[in-house]
């Protein structure tokens, strides 16, 4: 599903590469934790998958597509197959729960009938039944992240990228968030989650890829966050 072949990314005006000779495969339906300290290259990895950045060297395949050969105007179609969740939720404050989720479908031109059908389904999936008319500022952090996950998942992407989704959320609520991610993963969606949260990684017992200074230092199925931390 995601295939990195000897990928190096060096940002302009920086001598040290953000990612260096990274080769890895994420299969369809996998759940992968991406761990490592800040600046280890986790976010760069996610940005490369979205083609928000281009690799300096190496090849990247996502959902069977060679990103180097993907023209700019086809990038949006790639992104429709990838859902994204962030630490800061990125909801639109002027839209309620339903509208925030529907927005993701409206802007890719989905018919209204379709939107009316799938948005309530995904609201139920993330456990926000009865809160569809709430505004983001009326929701707790955990609930806002559930809205963000619903928005990321509503178009049934093949891949869900989560960049520290529990970073702003207390541990008790994080468990609920992880349950939703797990539920999404069980529908067959590949989930890649970058995180600092050792407790979550340890409790989930999924594949763990550890980055340090842009290099893969550990790739372990059913792994834990790591003793050093």
């Amino acid at each position, binding site marked *: 599903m995601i295939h990195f072949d000897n990928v190096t990314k060096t940002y302009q005006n920086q001598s040290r590469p953000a990612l260096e000779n990274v080769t890895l495969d994420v299969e369809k339906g996998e759940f992968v934790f991406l761990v490592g300290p800040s600046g280890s290259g986790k976010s760069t990895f996610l940005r490369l998958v979205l083609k928000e950045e281009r690799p300096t060297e190496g090849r990247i395949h996502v959902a069977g597509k060679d990103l180097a050969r993907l023209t700019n105007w086809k990038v949006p179609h790639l992104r429709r197959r990838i859902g994204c969740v962030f630490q800061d939720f*990125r909801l639109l404050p002027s839209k309620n729960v339903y509208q925030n989720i529907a927005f993701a479908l409206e802007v890719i031109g989905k018919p209204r009938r379709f939107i009316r059908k799938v948005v309530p389904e995904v609201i139920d999936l993330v456990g926000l039944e009865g809160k569809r008319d709430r505004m983001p500022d009326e929701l707790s952090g955990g609930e806002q992240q559930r809205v963000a996950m619903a928005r990321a998942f509503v178009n049934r992407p093949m891949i869900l990228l989560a960049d520290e989704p529990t970073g702003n959320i207390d541990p008790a609520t994080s468990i609920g968030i992880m349950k939703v991610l797990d539920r999404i993963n069980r529908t067959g969606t590949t989930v890649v989650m970058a995180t600092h949260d050792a407790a979550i990684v340890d409790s989930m017992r999924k594949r763990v890829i550890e980055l340090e200074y842009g290099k893969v230092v550990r790739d372990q199925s059913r792994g834990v966050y790591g003793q050093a931390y």
Partner: protein
Amino acid sequence: MRAQFVLHEVWIGLRRNLTMTIALVVVVAISLSLLGTGLLFVKQVNNTRTYWQGKVQLSVYLCTSGSASTQCSRNGPVTASEITSVRQTLQSDPQVSRVSFVSEAQAYRQFRQEFANNPSLIRDTLPSQIPSSFEVKLRNAQADATQVAAVVDGAPGVDQVVQNSSVLDKFYKLLDGARNAVVIIAIILIIAAILLVANTIRLSAFNRRRETSIMRLVGASNFYVQLPFLMEGVLAGLVGWLVATALLIVVKSLLLDGLQQYFPFNVQLNTTDLVEVVILAMIIGLVLCGTTSFLTLRRYLRV
């Protein structure tokens, strides 16, 4: 493509920076109407020129019983032999191409026709007050009109010689000057309008960076992301154009048509002229706003 969604986004965008939108509409309206006014002036001058092309360039007015000049009051009204000799003098001049005699009766009829919209003037003018004349057409333009005029000026029976070109030149100069001034101001304002469009779009893009970042994230096509902004610019341009159209109608009916009463000939611009100018203004306005929005967007909303 969901039109309703896009229109809603456009509406939100325009409302959020209402002051900029108003400024944009006003500047577009004024610049387009000034440009249109310039074009109307050009058309007015052209109309006038066309009217006078093929018309006489010299009018030699002969004395009537009512003529007030000293020469006429000394000699009395023109006699038949005087008419013949003036005609011969004119015809023998190598620079004259055609001479035609307009009798008092003919001149009066013509007068009634040209001033048909001024009945009080017609009522107060007696046929005898309209002089008979020789209408002279020259072989080539104005340059030698003065020479020919000098040949017959002061001849017995001749009241006065009028060079139409000198009258028209003043009129042309006036209109040309007005046109140049108007067009220069219009160009300055169009530059201002371009900068304003760019700024408005930039502000709008900044105001909605949250929305657009999410749109890009969920895979909205460039077109979809940019269309609301593009439409904002174009819509503001269209409203500006509508205001400009109203202003142009006012300019045409009050200023240019108002000028007509000072000229004894009918060269009024018709509706087709106005429509042409208005359509041209629309094209300029749309292209201007559309292109500027598009170019601005390429800088501020990249994938």
